[in-house]
């Protein structure tokens, strides 16, 4: 019961990177037991959650075991839809594409943001607030707007190619989104552009709460910039990195808007993602069970990745 009162806090180095674990959330009665009335307070939020999240989820799960076109009777097919999903090479390719997109949506922006944040710890940047606001703009833009804008940027006679031609790189310019090699990376870069602002602002805020004494002592100990980054900045940002990972990985895996507006999965099947298959299965092929099955698998994939991130973080916490 070390968190029973501030005065009794044992003399330990302050926990810098994360807020101390909150006190137990449930209010206890005199006997130390949960008062039943406490659950009443949960009811409004939970009923909302149940109606709009749990019920549809359960319904989709049920539908994934049926063959159904939306009109005629549902036919129980057991695991057939799942078998179809796992034996269809196109779906497997789409799942793999979504993994590649994680690199662009999550890994790349986090790495770049960490480097910049590390630099900022040493170098004073003028107009930091304005800088941050501008970087955050892509995050608040609707993705369809982003997609339309970037489709224009990547167009054969768009600004990107114009710029490349201008500086003599005309052999590089191409129809980016129609190119079998570059379509997926091109779309991925848009994801990086979108998520970078969020990640950067998260990290920048995280850095600000690191006490400057830590940097001072690191510098007194003769740490150079790189050493300082790994010894002070990075450990302090672990909480922010976890949040950033969860948000960006989720965005990568459930990516639909960008693909739908920019390429519809093309050229060929090069930028196919699972959510496009859900859309097609339900609205074009009208195989709602198949769409539901892909949806369930996508959800499990998301859940697994996020749990892995959380588990890794918790393990880090315990060993710290």
């Amino acid at each position, binding site marked *: 019961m070390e968190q029973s009162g501030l005065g009794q806090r044992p003399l330990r180095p302050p926990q810098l990177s994360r807020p101390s674990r909150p006190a137990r959330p449930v209010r206890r009665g005199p006997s130390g037991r949960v008062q039943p009335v406490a659950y009443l307070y949960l009811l409004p939020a939970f009923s909302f959650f149940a109606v709009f999240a749990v019920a549809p989820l359960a319904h*989709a799960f049920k539908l994934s075991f049926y063959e159904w076109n*939306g009109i005629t009777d549902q036919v129980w097919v057991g695991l057939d839809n799942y078998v179809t999903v796992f034996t269809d090479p196109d779906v497997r390719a789409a799942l793999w594409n979504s993994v590649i997109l994680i690199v662009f949506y999550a890994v790349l922006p986090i790495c770049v943001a960490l480097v910049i944040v590390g630099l900022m710890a040493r170098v004073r940047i003028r107009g930091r607030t304005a800088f941050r606001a501008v970087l955050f703009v892509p995050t608040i833009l609707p993705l369809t707007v982003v997609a339309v804008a970037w489709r224009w940027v990547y167009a054969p006679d768009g600004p990107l190619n114009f710029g490349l031609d201008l500086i003599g790189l005309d052999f590089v310019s191409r129809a980016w989104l129609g190119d079998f090699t570059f379509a997926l990376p091109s779309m991925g870069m848009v994801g990086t552009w979108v998520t970078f602002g969020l990640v950067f602002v998260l990290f920048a805020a995280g850095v600000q709460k690191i006490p400057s004494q830590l940097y001072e002592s690191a510098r007194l100990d003769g740490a150079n910039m790189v050493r300082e980054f790994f010894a002070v900045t990075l450990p302090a940002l672990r909480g922010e990195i976890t949040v950033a990972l969860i948000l960006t990985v989720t965005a990568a895996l459930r990516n639909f808007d960008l693909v739908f507006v920019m390429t519809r999965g093309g050229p060929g099947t090069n930028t196919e993602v699972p959510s496009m298959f859900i859309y097609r299965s339900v609205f074009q*092929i009208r195989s709602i069970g198949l769409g539901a099955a892909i949806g369930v698998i996508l*959800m499990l994939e998301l859940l697994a990745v996020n749990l892995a991130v959380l588990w890794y973080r918790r393990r880090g916490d315990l060993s710290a």
Partner: protein
Amino acid sequence: MRSRSLSRVVKILAVILAFMLVSAACSGDDDTADGPVVLDVLAEAGDEATLELATAQFTEMYPHVSFNITLRAFDDYMQIAPGILSSDDPPDIAHGNQGYTIDGLLVQGGLILPLDDYAAQYGWVDAFGDGTLDQYRFTEDGTDFGNGILWGINGVAEFVGVYYNKEKLAALGGLPATFEEFDALLAAAKDAGEVPIQLGNAEGWPALHVYGMVEAAYRPAAEIRDWVFGEPGATVVTDTERQAAAKFEEWRDNGYFPEGVNGIAYDDSVANFIAGEGVFMIAGNWNTATLDEGMGANAGYFAMPVGPSGIVGGTAALALPWHITTSAEDPDLAAEFINLLVSEEFADDLASVGRVAARSSDTEIEGLLAEVTAGAAAVIADEGVTLYADWATPTMFDTLTSKTQELLGGQIDGEQFLNDVQADWDAANG
């Protein structure tokens, strides 16, 4: 985050449900007294002007009838229409779409009425020519496309043909009378430093319309129709079709299409053509108004001459079928209205809103639309209609869009293209 990670299906179903509730709420008070009758029409938004004209005429003939029209843009329409038709408050008249995914579904669900009796009563089959209406036929169980009962009809032609830049073509030669002449003009255009065929294939289906023309040049239209309708033994892996695929590859390799064709959006390609890039553009007649506005007298149109004999043909069909729903309160009245839409008299009105009537129209139409209408009439007269290949199976649209991109991008060759497409067909019809 949990709610966000929900499957999209559920979200989309929720949207449909919401829409059904709203539409039910909006149309709940239609059924008033005995005298006045309200016809509920659910239509694709492209027919807004058509419906305005038709309903005005119909109300003049039947003053007690009024209309309640709901319009939705194409993509939306195809997503929500089956749901609305199977809801508790369906419309009396609604658009469908040829093929398994919409019309087949509506027939299977028992949501629309057979029109054979009305067709006999109004003489539709004779008027449109034998076979033309097969695209609206399904067997009673909704599984055999192109055969059996007539479930819908539309009098508007949606034909793919060849638009051309008159100035540029004049510099190269005259109108081609045969496919060989057309091919030669492409080579001449390339030599002259022009883009022979304007095309933007970011969506995948625009190139399909071009391929359909080449296909029609090498195979009889009836064979292609049989394949679309899933007749036993039909295949695209034949020697004649290989020649077509090889010709398409030749066009690709010769650089007859714009550079980066898979990265150009369809709308942008139309804009490029208007701006003077491209001698020809093989595209649907729904572009007529846009081109007329953008190019004026410099835009021309002809039906593709398929083969050496000079007959014309190619990818073409009639527009989205009008259906009468099984819950229509007065099916006879609904049929009367549909007959007005497809009647010869209404053909002139169709032209006035820029649509091409499949039944010949006597009025003087001017400009590009006249050429387009003449082209459509010629294709019908030559029995060159090959329908839309993506109707063949529920998954064919996706297969064809990705495969044409791969073919144009050089990822696969013509032989692979045909094998992949046939594999889809075999899976559905085997």
